[in-house]
C-alpha cells in the first residue's frame, strides 16, 4: 500500500459514501449537503490524476456554485422543510436492480477490457497549457460552450422570473 493507494481508497470511499447518502437520504437537504464531500472527493481523485486545474474548477463550480444553487432551489421550493413526504417512486426496486446490474456490467467491462496504455510522458497540465489547448485545438468547442452558457443564462432568467 503506497501513499497514493491509501489516498485513492480514502477519496473513493468519501466520494462513494457521500454519493450513497445523496441517493438514499430521505431528507433532501441532507442529500444536497452530502454532495459537497462527494464533489470534494472527486476533486481529490482529479488531483491524484494530475488534473489540478480541473480540480480547482470542480471545487469552484460544483462544490461552490452548483451545490449552493441546489440548496437554494430546495429552500425556495420546499418552504425550508425538506421533508415533503415520499421521496421514492414505485419503481424503486426495479431501478435498484437495473442500477446494480449496470454497475456490475460496467465493472466487468472495465476490468475485462485490456486498456492500452498510451505512450508519452505526462505533460504539466498547467492552466496555461489548458488555455492554449482551448484556444488553439478546441476553439470551436470553446466558442460553442460560450454560446450554450449565454443561452442557458438567458433561459434561466426568463424561466425563473416572475411574470408581472
Amino acid at each position, binding site marked *: 500500500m503506497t501513499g497514493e493507494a491509501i489516498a485513492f481508497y480514502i477519496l473513493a470511499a468519501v466520494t462513494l459514501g457521500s454519493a450513497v447518502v445523496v441517493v438514499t437520504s430521505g431528507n433532501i437537504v441532507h442529500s444536497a449537503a452530502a454532495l459537497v464531500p462527494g464533489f470534494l472527493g472527486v476533486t481529490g481523485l482529479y488531483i491524484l490524476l494530475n488534473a*489540478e486545474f480541473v480540480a480547482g474548477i470542480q471545487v469552484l463550480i460544483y462544490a461552490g456554485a452548483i451545490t449552493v444553487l441546489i440548496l437554494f432551489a430546495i429552500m425556495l421550493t420546499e418552504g*425550508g422543510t425538506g421533508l415533503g413526504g415520499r421521496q421514492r417512486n414505485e419503481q424503486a426496486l426495479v431501478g435498484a436492480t437495473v442500477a446494480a446490474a449496470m454497475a456490475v456490467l460496467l465493472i466487468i467491462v472495465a476490468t475485462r477490457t485490456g486498456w492500452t496504455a498510451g505512450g508519452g510522458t505526462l505533460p504539466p497540465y498547467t492552466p496555461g497549457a489548458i488555455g492554449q489547448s482551448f484556444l488553439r485545438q478546441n476553439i470551436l468547442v470553446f466558442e460553442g460552450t460560450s454560446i450554450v452558457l449565454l443561452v442557458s443564462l438567458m433561459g434561466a432568467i426568463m424561466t425563473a422570473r416572475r411574470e408581472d
Partner: protein
Amino acid sequence: MGWISDVLRAIVGTIIIFSAVAFIAVMFGVLLERKISAWMQSRLGPKHVGPQGLLQTLADTIKLLQKENIVPARADKVIFASAVIVVPLAALLDYVVIPFGTTRSGPLIFRDLNIGVLYFAATSSLVVVGILMAGWGSNNKYALLGGMRSAAQMVTYEIPMGLALVTVALVAGSLSTVTIVNGQARLWYIVTQPVAFLVFLVAATAEVNRVPFDLVEAESELVAGYFSEYSGMRFALFQLGEYGEMFAMAAMAVTLFLGGWRGPVLPPVVWFVVKLYALIFVFMWVRWTYPRFRIDQMLNFSWKILIPVSVLNLVVTAFFAVVAHR
C-alpha cells in the same frame, strides 16, 4: 514517494495554520476590532484582562469553551453540527496558497500551486455552503433568512472577485501566487490595476459579510443571522471562520496588489504582516464608518456596477496585454 511528504506537510501545515491563525490572527483580530471601534467611538475598549486588555479574547475563548452547546429542539442536528466544521475549514483552506514571505530556501508558502488564485476562489466559495447549512439547520426563520441573504450575496460578489483575480492573473501571466508576487518586483499591481484592486476590496468586504454588506447578520433585523442559534464553542468556530476569511482576503489582496512580502530593509514576513494589518485596519475603518446596504442595493451594486466595471477592466487589460506581447 515524494508526494507523501507533501501530503504530510500540507496536513501539518494546515494544523499549524489552524493554531496560528486561531491564536494569533483571529484573537488578535477580534481584539483589534474592539480596540479600533472603541477608538473611533472615543471609548477605551477592553482594558482589564491582561495589560491593556490584551488577553481579553483569550478569556472570552475560555468562557465560550466552557459554555453549554445548545441545539434547538427541532433543528436538523446533522446539518447543524456539520455547518460549524465547513465554515472555518473553508476559511483555513484559503491559507494554503498565500505566500507569507521568503526564506533562504524559497517562498514561505504551504503549496505553491500552479492554480493558486483559482484555488483561492474555489475554497473561499465553499463558505457559502456552510452558511446555508447553518441557516437551514437551525430551523429558525432569522437564521434561514440570514443564510439565504448570505448565499445570494456571496454568490453575487464571487463574480467580480473572480474577475479581479483573473485580471491580475492575466497581468502576471500566471495563476501561481508566488509568480504574481514576483511579478511585482518593480511595480505593485495596485498601480497598474487600481480598478481591480478596488473591485477586489469591495467584493472581499461583501464576501466576509462585513459592513456595509453585513445585512446577513444585521442585528436589528435578523438577530445574528445564520448563527443566531449557535452558542459556546460552535459560536467561537463561526467567529474563527469569519475572521479567518477576512484575514485570508486581506492576505490575498496584499499578495495580488500590494507586492506580497516585498519591501525594503525589513524582513519579508514583517512587510507582509504590516501590509496585512494595514488592510485589516481599512476593513475595520470601513466597518465603523459606513451604514448598511439594503438587499436590493447590495445586489444591484454587484450586478450593475461591479461586474460591468470589472469585465470592462478585464477586457481593457487583456487588450493591453496582447498589445504588449506584440
